[in-house]
Structure formats: structure tokens, C-alpha cells
């Protein structure tokens, strides 16, 4: 059985590589993300109440809503979990006891390999599609409505905006370089269904991607990326984001030598689970908002 929502939120870490790497992106969206952990604490922050009876009642309603499979919240959580690379377990376990220290990538170089560009391209686009599908599962807008998603993107804030910032920086700029948007669009446009079929991230969530067969799903992924590319491009330009500025901020807690920069994307991939972490935070917030409004 899947975990209860209160357990997922109570168990969110306050430190470790995921939290540190997200904090390193504070310069991208200054002050907009706080690492809110704990179910009751989230209820207090979202609703502004500290009345224990209200907190309990809101919590109970949120738990019930999450457990109703027809409501789509569990599917959204599953999507956030699944697109976060399975390979991260290696990094997470090995580094768990190093919280608070500066991490040296060198000791892990034997275990990580930079991904081929095609694999990274698919990963980035599939993660973006997972965001669209999860958004629709949580907020209830039909699953293939990219237009609604775009309207809501403008209103993204807090943990949702941080997730997008991390997607752009950790899965776009760092592994693929400053022209990643054009590169991904070119590669996806010329990709065959077979290439997509072989990708692990795609395989993980393909049943949730609209479009029918693999060719149709490829079309949906390519179209979705194209629709969001303008927003991403603005995000990068307006904040002056480059691989160098992102790496510069990551250097505050990871030792990275210039000749090993190729490995940084893979290192972040195996050692962080920012989709799952911020996804649980987004989900908790939306559930709590709804529960408080309904009770």
C-alpha cells in the first residue's frame, strides 16, 4: 500500500543534497521557496491557523481526499516519484551521512557517467510532461489541456516554481548547455518512436502520457515542450541564467573541478530527488487548501 500523505510530508528532509541543491537556486527565485516540512506545519503555514481542532479537521479531510484514488492525487505523487531517476538511490544512500558538509564529487566519479544527449533530452521533456499531467491530476484540468497549464504557469509560485527552476537548471542548462531549449526541440522533432521506447524515464510513466501509441505520445511530448519553450526561454533570459551562474552557486556546497563539469548533471541526477520532494510539498498545499475550503 502506498504511504499516507501525512507520512510523506512528515518525512520530508530538512537537509541533505536535494535541499541544499534547491537552496543553491534561491538566487533564481529569491525568497520564493521555503523548505516546508511536516504535515501539521504545512496546514499552519497554508491556512494561517494554529487552532489544534481546525488543524486536525483539515488534516483528516486532506487524508481522506488523498486516499480517494478517483481524485488523482495519488497518481500525481506517483508521477513525481517515478520521473525522479531510480539511479539516485545509489547517491542518496552513500551520501546520507554527509549532511551539512561540503560534498566532494570526486569520490563518486567511479559510479556515475554523463548521460548521452539524447537520453538527457528525453528525460527533460518527459519530466516536463509529467509536470503537466500531475498538474492536471491535482488541479483537475483535463489531462491534455496544455493551454490551461500555460495560463497557470504564470501563477506558479513557491515549491512549484522551484521545481521548474530546478528542471531548467539541473536537467537543462547544466547537462545540455545554454542552448538547451533549441537543442531539445530539434532532437525531439527528429526522434523516432523506437528511441523514445528505449528510454527509462519514458517507460516509467508512459501509461499516463496522453497520445495513444508511442508515436502519439512522442507528438504530445514534443508539442508540450514547444508550448512551454517560450516561458522557459523568458525564465532563463530574464534571470540571466547560464550554466556558469548555476554552477557558481552550486559550488557553495559541492566541490566541482572545471574538468569534471560534464559529470555534474549526472551527479545531481543520482543524488537528488527534487521532483519528488517539491512534488509532495505542492500536493500537500493543494490538498490542504481544498480541505480547508470544504470543511
Amino acid at each position, binding site marked *: 500500500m502506498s504511504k*499516507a500523505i*501525512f507520512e510523506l510530508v512528515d518525512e520530508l528532509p530538512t537537509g541533505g543534497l536535494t535541499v541544499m541543491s534547491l537552496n543553491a537556486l534561491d538566487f533564481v527565485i529569491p525568497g520564493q521557496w521555503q523548505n516546508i516540512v511536516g504535515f501539521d506545519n504545512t496546514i499552519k503555514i497554508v491556512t*494561517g491557523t494554529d487552532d489544534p481542532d481546525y488543524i486536525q479537521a483539515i*488534516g*483528516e479531510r486532506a487524508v481522506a481526499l488523498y486516499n*480517494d484514488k478517483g481524485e488523482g492525487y495519488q497518481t500525481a505523487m506517483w508521477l513525481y516519484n517515478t520521473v525522479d531517476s531510480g539511479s539516485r538511490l545509489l547517491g542518496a544512500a552513500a551520501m546520507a551521512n554527509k549532511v551539512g558538509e561540503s560534498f566532494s564529487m570526486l569520490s563518486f566519479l567511479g559510479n556515475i557517467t554523463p548521460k548521452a544527449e539524447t537520453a538527457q533530452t528525453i528525460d527533460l521533456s518527459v519530466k516536463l510532461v509529467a509536470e503537466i499531467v500531475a498538474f492536471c491530476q491535482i488541479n483537475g484540468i483535463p489531462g491534455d489541456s496544455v493551454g490551461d497549464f500555460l495560463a497557470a504557469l504564470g501563477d506558479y509560485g513557491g515549491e512549484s516554481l522551484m521545481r521548474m527552476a530546478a528542471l531548467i537548471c539541473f536537467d537543462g542548462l547544466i547537462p545540455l548547455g545554454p542552448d538547451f531549449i533549441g537543442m531539445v526541440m530539434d532532437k525531439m522533432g527528429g526522434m523516432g518512436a523506437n528511441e523514445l521506447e528505449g528510454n527509462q524515464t519514458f517507460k516509467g510513466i508512459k501509461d499516463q502520457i496522453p497520445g495513444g501509441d508511442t508515436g502519439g505520445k512522442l507528438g504530445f511530448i514534443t508539442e508540450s515542450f514547444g508550448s512551454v519553450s517560450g516561458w522557459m526561454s523568458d525564465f532563463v533570459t530574464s534571470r540571466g541564467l547560464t550554466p556558469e551562474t548555476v554552477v557558481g552557486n552550486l559550488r557553495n556546497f559541492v566541490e566541482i573541478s572545471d574538468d569534471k563539469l560534464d559529470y555534474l548533471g549526472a551527479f545531481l541526477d543520482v543524488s537528488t530527488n527534487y521532483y519528488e520532494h517539491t512534488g509532495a510539498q505542492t500536493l500537500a498545499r493543494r490538498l490542504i*487548501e481544498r480541505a480547508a475550503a470544504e*470543511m
Partner: protein
Amino acid sequence: MIVSNWRKALMPIVLSVALLFSACSSKEPSKYATTQKETSGRSAPAAVAKNAEAGGDFNKFFPQGDAGFARVFSQEKKGFAEAKLNKGGKNVAVLSISDTISLPAAAKKYEKSTSKIGSYPLLDEAPLKSTGVLVNNRYQVKVASRDPSFTATDRQAWLSKFNLDGLSKLK
């Protein structure tokens, strides 16, 4: 013999220590454990009633944005619709309509109401910084503050901007 007695004497100590450790290490059950048990599993009741109104049917009764306030729809689920009210890019309040058919206690609390908007009972919940009305004894319309600048008076003013009479005719 001595060895055997020594073992006999030690056993209760070992057992008590083991019990003490297991008691200390076992987590206290969560205060949501009962709800979790009741609402998960195959025979668990649905959280949203089958005949709840579609959330999209509520959208047209929401007020438009106003001078300085942008209204952004944020959730549309069965029996529930929600919009954010943003001012200067900051979320200051949340507007919502929900169908209490899924949660009858939500409608029942309006029995305590002592004031009205039009003919609809009004209730302010100070701990939640939230004010609501109940339409047709079924649809709950709420405005909740998300910023100290948005007061109880603002909440009532925005509640009046909903098309409550239109909502009351929803079949």
C-alpha cells in the same frame, strides 16, 4: 547449577530490557491513523460523493477580478472549484465554492449562523481567517484571507460579489 541459576536470574532482566527498548522505539501512532485506516483500502468510502456537482459548473458564479485584484482559477475538481485572488502578484485571498453533499458537517455548522448575506446564512471562522455562506442548504461559498491586509470586511465584501442567487438556481 550455579550457571543455570545465573541464567534464570538474568532472563527476566534481559526480557525487561528488550521490552523497554521495543516500547521506546515503536512510534506513537499518528493522530491521523484512524482516518487513514477508515479512508484507505478497498471498501473505504469515497471522499467525494458520486452525485456531487461538477466543479466546472461553479466557475460562472465566481466574481471577476477587480481594480488591483487578479482572479486566477486554481482548482476544479468534482464538487469543488477554487480561484486565487492576487494583488500586485501576491496571493491575498482564496475564493471557493464546494458541494457539501460530500461533507454534510460543513453545511450543518451554518445552523450556528446569526447573520446573512441576502437570504443566505453567513459564518465567520476566525481561526481560519475565513468567511462563508451556505446557498440552498448545499453549496458553501467561502473567502479565506492569505494576507493580513485582507480583512474580515474584505471577505464579506467579496462574498457579496459572487452570483449567489445564480448559484441557488443550480440544479
